[in-house]
């Protein structure tokens, strides 16, 4: 159970990064840390002690001792979606830098007409 609590601690560190930091790139790094923590938590939930990877072959029929394959299927799509989210965040940051010449969120509040 200690491992699950440590995964939640990683998520909270990412949340601190999103809420407190001033730099846009640091906010994007915080989002990525949160996403790693959630994927880690899902993979930890599905683990079964003494089990093997859920792939059938000649010696391992349908009655072997497998780990849970369902959380792995959910995490597989979550990893790829995380990449799409990161790419969009980073492209926003690059565009804002071209217009305002800074990454500081305190200075980009002025909307120019």
């Amino acid at each position, binding site marked *: 159970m200690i491992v699950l609590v440590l995964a939640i601690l990683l998520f909270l560190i990412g949340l601190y990064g999103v809420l407190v930091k001033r730099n846009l790139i640091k906010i994007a790094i915080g989002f990525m840390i949160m996403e790693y923590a959630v994927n880690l938590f899902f993979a930890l939930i599905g683990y079964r002690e003494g089990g093997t990877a859920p792939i059938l*072959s*000649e010696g391992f029929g349908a009655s072997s001792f497998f780990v849970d394959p369902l959380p792995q299927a959910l995490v597989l799509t979550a*990893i790829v979606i995380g990449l799409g989210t990161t790419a969009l965040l*980073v492209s926003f940051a690059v565009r804002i830098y071209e217009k305002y010449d800074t990454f500081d969120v305190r200075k980009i509040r002025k909307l120019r007409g």
Partner: protein
Amino acid sequence: MRGMTLIVKCITQLMAPSIFLLGIYVVLHGHLTPGGGFAGGVLMAGCFVLIVLAYGSEEARSEVRKWRASLSESIGIFIFWLLAMLGVIQGSYFFYNVIAKVNPGQPYTLFSAGIIPLCNIAIGIEVAASLFAIFITLAVLKVGEKL
């Protein structure tokens, strides 16, 4: 972005086809070994990104028009949707595995599992084109250029 030295260019010429072949292998054997469409697609995109990084963006700009990343991405997801609609056309529900019911191969061989290898190929094409388009837009294109 400038290119790299001559040694890097020579090694890239040797390594890039092998990386692409590894990507195709991981996509095709997705129903037998770990991997599948997503991992293989990202590997194929990695091969193209390696070529662009090693040769510089000036030489790559003339080649981008030929690669047509946007078109391949749309074709990939359209084929995936078409394979899913085969079940509805035949009369059953969405994502019905039509080929496995008609012609089930032997398990543990390459030509088994019906619709799953074809879906893997479509997803591989789509993911590879998507990631290459993201990289090209961020690093290579200049003002006013279209993809």
